[in-house]
């Protein structure tokens, strides 16, 4: 059976096509779907596209920013108001991949990819999706937990609140090959400070579980404290709690568990 490409003017029509066809995949930048097709993934028989301008919109003027699902990493990097997202955007692929790869697609990128999603998870983003039952907003954590069941829905946009300062949001990708390697571990931390104390810390990890996850034990170790050496050490020692990394060519599960605390400590203490 040949592969059919269906192109729709609106996102809602595309979402309809996705939800009615189990073998349909949405094509954003193609860095995942075209690779799968070229490598002989016969589970995909229909490729769905949408020309909807709304999917490529960036709203970065206010305290809450919204990125259309079709926004590429290259566009994020070109947007001065999105400086806090430049580090995660730059950490993805090479220029060619960043020119094509999209925010929406990154939400579905399997380990060792999906680095931008780690940043979004730390920032407590909201994912707007359109399914068979209409549009709705889902917290990113909930979205990721049910990611395998999201195949029939179309992601429209992602939004999050801008961190209060550049210190409040930190991101680091550990890769063996720079600048283009897959992730050994990816870390992002949102550390809002209120009266000298951390309030509502969120730490997100990539490549430490089948999907991006939060390091809740480390977050608890930070909560209500100032970011001093003892706090950082406590968070670092709790970093691997609740994680379930696996072995791949870039690193073993054991190695990831061993080093995640080291890198979290460096991230929190601002060490290069």
């Amino acid at each position, binding site marked *: 059976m040949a592969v059919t490409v269906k192109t729709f003017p609106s996102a809602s029509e595309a979402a309809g096509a996705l939800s009615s066809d189990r073998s349909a995949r949405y094509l954003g930048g193609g860095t995942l779907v075209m690779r799968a097709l070229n490598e*002989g993934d*016969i589970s995909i028989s229909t490729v769905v596209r949408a020309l909807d301008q709304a999917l490529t919109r960036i709203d970065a003027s206010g305290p809450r920013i919204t990125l259309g699902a079709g926004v590429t990493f290259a566009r994020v990097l070109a947007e001065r108001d999105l400086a806090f997202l430049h580090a995660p955007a730059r950490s993805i692929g090479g220029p060619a991949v960043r020119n094509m790869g999209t925010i929406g697609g990154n939400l579905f990128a399997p380990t060792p990819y999906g680095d931008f999603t780690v940043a979004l998870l730390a920032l407590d983003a909201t994912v707007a999706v359109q399914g068979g039952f209409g549009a709705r907003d889902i917290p990113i954590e909930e979205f990721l937990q049910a990611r395998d069941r999201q195949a029939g829905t179309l992601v429209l946009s992602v939004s999050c609140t801008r961190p209060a300062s550049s210190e409040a949001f930190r991101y680091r990708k550990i890769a063996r090959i720079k600048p283009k390697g897959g992730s050994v571990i990816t870390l992002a931390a949102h550390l809002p400070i209120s009266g000298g104390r951390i309030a509502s810390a969120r730490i997100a990890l990539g490549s430490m579980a089948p999907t991006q996850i939060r390091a809740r034990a480390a977050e608890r170790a930070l909560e209500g404290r100032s970011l001093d050496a003892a706090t950082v050490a406590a968070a670092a020692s709790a970093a691997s709690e609740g994680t379930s990394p696996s072995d791949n060519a870039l690193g073993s599960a054991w190695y990831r568990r061993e080093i995640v605390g080291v890198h979290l400590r460096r991230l929190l203490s601002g060490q290069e």
Partner: protein
Amino acid sequence: MLELRKDIFADERDDNLNEIGKGTQRQDMLGHVTGTSSFFNDHKLQGMLHLKVVRSTQAHARIRRIDTTEAERSAGVRRIIRGADVPVNLNTLLSLINFGKDDEPSLAVDKVRYKGEPIIAIVADSEREAFEAIAKVKIDYEPLPAVFDVEDALKPGAPVVNETYPKNTFTYHETYDHQRLRFGDADAALATADHVLEQRYQMSPIEHAPTETNGAIAAPDTNGRYVVYTSTQALFFSVDTCAKILDVPSNTFHFIGGTVGGGFGGKVDTLTEPLAILGAMLTGRPVRYMFGREEEMQYGPPRGAERIYIKDGVMRDGRVVARKIRAYFDSGAYTRLSSYAAVKCAAHLPGPYTIPNVYGDVYCVFTNRTPATAMRGFGVTAMDFAIECQMDKLAHLVGMDPMEFRILNAYRDGDMKAHRREAKNTALIECVQVAAEKAKWPLREEFKRASSRKDGGGSRAVIPPTPTDSSRARSTNPVQQRTSYDRLPPTVTREPPREPPPTVPPPPSPRPAAPSHGATRFSSVFGTRRR
């Protein structure tokens, strides 16, 4: 940036070179930078079919049954090719130069020996239809114990990977299970050395990762010939390999290659051409067979992994007096070029140094891993990495500067090399001197004055008395000062896993006791030449 140091060895060179030292435009550069170079895959022929292979999911298994009934009925399938359809379904690459036994089928028949080994080829109207048919092929495997470690493969009772070589080692000169180098008495020298350092070095397989994956397009031509567009980096080699596998004269083929989208040794194995041509023969249509990226990375042959043990004896004054090496080349499940790599390696020992006692055992071992092949200096690169790491460690051990330590031990013109040839045109000393100068690395005056053309030969040209293995009782571990260097316990003494019976004659490359020059060099490398 290019600087030619013509002051060095100036009297040995006519300074009339036409190319070296001059900026020369590569002839293919304009096409490459303008994106107009044509590669094999740019040929889209009318009615072209696409070939894909079903690969083994098992590292080592007997094939009980192959069921292709559903695949044959799959849409767009033109032909299913089995091992029985391949005219000569057993080959080894270097059989063209009479080196090694045929050991690898184009399509596995009764057994698979590595994960990813091709079993069935499917020719279909589109790649997609070929992939869909592949999903419908059912193969019933009986898994066999697999071996992935070179030393495990040599242990008694190890699974036999490849029945052509039942000892899991390549056979040299129809007799020997490894390459052997003996020069002087390394064990005696180790026993009296001031320091002994033994280290283990383990390499990884390395994929060439070409931009263009391996592939070929074969099309029927007039007069019963076939035109083949191919990515091969060894065109005439590929022609003859295809002629052998398909059992036709080589003038049946018109191979067109030349533009290789990245080779580095990864495109000499002629993996795609025979099946593409066979597909064209069986369907009468042009057939394209190109590796996907995952196929290239996972099943394309890599640089082989080597395990190397080096045990060196060094005196307090910095002279290396003995070097004992055991190396295991992981050939994977079949012989591609690792057999030759082991020969190159043995010929390279002990590196560019004059060491009076050298002992080398180099094994080409079969395991249930992806067959390994050529890659940039294979056979020598890994050994050089190990040797140079070792040289740094030895220098540290005796408290010498590593650059000066190399100059002290470097071979010089007139020295006798371990494989009993006189060293000529040596230049390591000058290389180290220039490297030190460029790096602003201080060398003491006597080392700055050293020359490859001075102080060589004489007693350094003598071939030392060399005990044969059979004349020597198994040496007991000599008592001596040992120095632990890093994490590895250096005192672990490993011996070759399989000592040849005493009746085996002395070293595999018998040479006259005096330096001989001339015509025997090539045949001494490729052992099965008539000797």
